[in-house]
């Protein structure tokens, strides 16, 4: 909105400065809890509740304690493995489905697409009980398969990929088709290379979602050797309820990789969120 018409230039600068200050204060308040978490992770036991942001006697003791005295490395490894496998399989399946739904002609295409799209509004808490019963019946409780397979399928990724493929020019595939390439060849050597940008942003989003997911891993794996970091933290918190320095160190270890990814890929992450709202 152009405010300069209503104010003299000097006033406009002041107004804008005030808004910028307001924005800055709000933004600092928003990230403050995260900064505070990191700060306490490096504070000693005695200093935890003192309000200073910079630790007076910074220590790595908490981080070392969490990594050595609690099977946190195991939780980290589990989470990494599950997140990577889910991300790769999901991208593979969703690119295939998105390509077929956008480009190939087959009976029932619109119906199938609508059916897939309608699952977009089904959220995990609503189906957690029946899903658990189903997965138990399949014998996947307390297995990596149980952690991984149900997490792969979501309409959001299929939808975004289909939208992307609808916007690609057809010429490249048609040339390949005339050259006698099969549909798999076209998918593999024409479509996939073309989808690199969207696949990259979806990979970040999927990895992030799986790294941060709690409800499903909590439900499907009671065996602590299969725990992911989020379940580990929740459990750690109830065991060490007074040792906030350890709890914050554990939280920082879990949150830090995602915050680093965010700093590096913030543009891609935020752009893909921005486009996801536009139907």
């Amino acid at each position, binding site marked *: 909105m152009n405010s300069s018409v209503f104010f003299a230039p000097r006033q406009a600068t002041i107004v804008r400065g005030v808004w910028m200050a307001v924005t800055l204060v709000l933004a600092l308040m928003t990230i403050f809890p995260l900064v505070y978490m990191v700060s306490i992770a490096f504070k000693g036991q005695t200093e935890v509740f003192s309000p200073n942001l910079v630790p007076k006697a910074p220590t790595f003791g908490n981080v070392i304690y969490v990594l050595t005295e609690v099977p946190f490395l195991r939780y980290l490894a589990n989470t990494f493995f599950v997140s990577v496998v889910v991300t790769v399989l999901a991208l593979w399946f969703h690119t295939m489905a998105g390509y077929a739904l956008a480009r190939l002609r087959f009976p029932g295409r619109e*119906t199938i697409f609508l059916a897939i799209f309608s699952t977009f509004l089904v959220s995990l808490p609503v189906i957690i009980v029946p899903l658990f019963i189903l997965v138990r019946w399949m014998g996947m409780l307390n297995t990596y398969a149980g952690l991984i397979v149900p997490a792969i399928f979501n309409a959001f990724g299929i939808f975004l990929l289909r939208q992307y493929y609808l916007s690609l020019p057809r010429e490249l595939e048609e040339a390949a088709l005339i050259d006698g390439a099969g549909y798999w060849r076209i998918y593999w050597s024409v479509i996939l290379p073309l989808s690199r940008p969207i696949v990259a942003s979806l990979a970040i989003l999927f990895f992030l979602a799986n790294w941060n997911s709690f409800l499903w891993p909590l439900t499907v794996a009671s065996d602590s050797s299969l725990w992911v970091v989020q379940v580990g933290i929740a459990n750690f918190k109830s065991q060490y309820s007074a040792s906030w320095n350890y709890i914050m160190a554990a939280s920082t270890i879990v949150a830090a990789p995602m915050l680093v990814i965010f700093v590096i890929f913030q543009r891609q992450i935020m752009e893909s969120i921005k486009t996801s709202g536009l139907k």
Partner: protein
Amino acid sequence: MSVDTSSMTVAAARTRPRRRMSDARTREWIAAYLFILPDTVGLILFVGLPMLFALIIGVFDVNGFGSFAFVGLANYRRMAADPLFWHCLRVTAIYVVLLVPSLYVAGLGLALLVQRTNRFNAVMRSMFFAPQMVSLVVIAVIWQFLSADKIGLFARIFSFFGISGVSLLGNPSLALITTVFVTVWFLMGFYMMIFLGGLQDIPRQYYEAATIDGAAPRQQFWHITMPLLRPTSFFVLLVSLVAAVAGSQAFDLIYVMTRGGPANATSVMITYIYQQAFQYSAFGYAAAMSSILVIVLMLLTGLLFFLTRGGRFDYE
């Protein structure tokens, strides 16, 4: 999956296929079905089937070992007579009513604040979005720490202003409000980005023309921005409503921060459902309550679609 025969005959009539052509067409069909097979099967098994189950398992008694016994409406009768069920339903309703409008206002407000593209705003956007990167478990841990009685940061701030003895998570009448506040803080950056996407699509000329006609910023907001943002508003309301009713964020936050307490003040439906299923192995009863949640969600989304004609508005 059903085969759409009408589009098949239309396609056939359109091209009058020669032998070779129909071979190519069959190959395309087969390829397409194979391409969508993994996702379709997965979605049917792990989303569709559970959804169907959610609606029907309620009439069974399911024990911890997975054996089913038909019990008719017993679970629903138990629900009707269970004061905790009604309590949790009420808590969920309050949570939704507090959360959805606050999120809408916070998301739109932030979007308007950082709408201009410049380097300063780019940094501000990232800062508002940053909590999204962190898991709700960690978020819950941090906020529980900040809200600790007496020695927590908020308690100190309150006592600085002469207010003492405030327990943000320990006081039943404050705990739910605190949970809503944390949820807003966590999600507002996400909805800010969605709103920014919507604002970006409004042609600048509208504002330029309005400015020339002498429309004040506030008038421009009500007469240009809000009407043209309707599709975005619809999306935001739909997504935040579904997430709030289902408890997508509430479950993690409450599980870590309050476990539904104090005095069940933060027991939303999903918290109670989870407790019944996974602490007391009352799967049938939990599923019956899930089915109520499914029906409520269907009614609310139906209502939203009805009120907005599927997100389409006749301003154009």
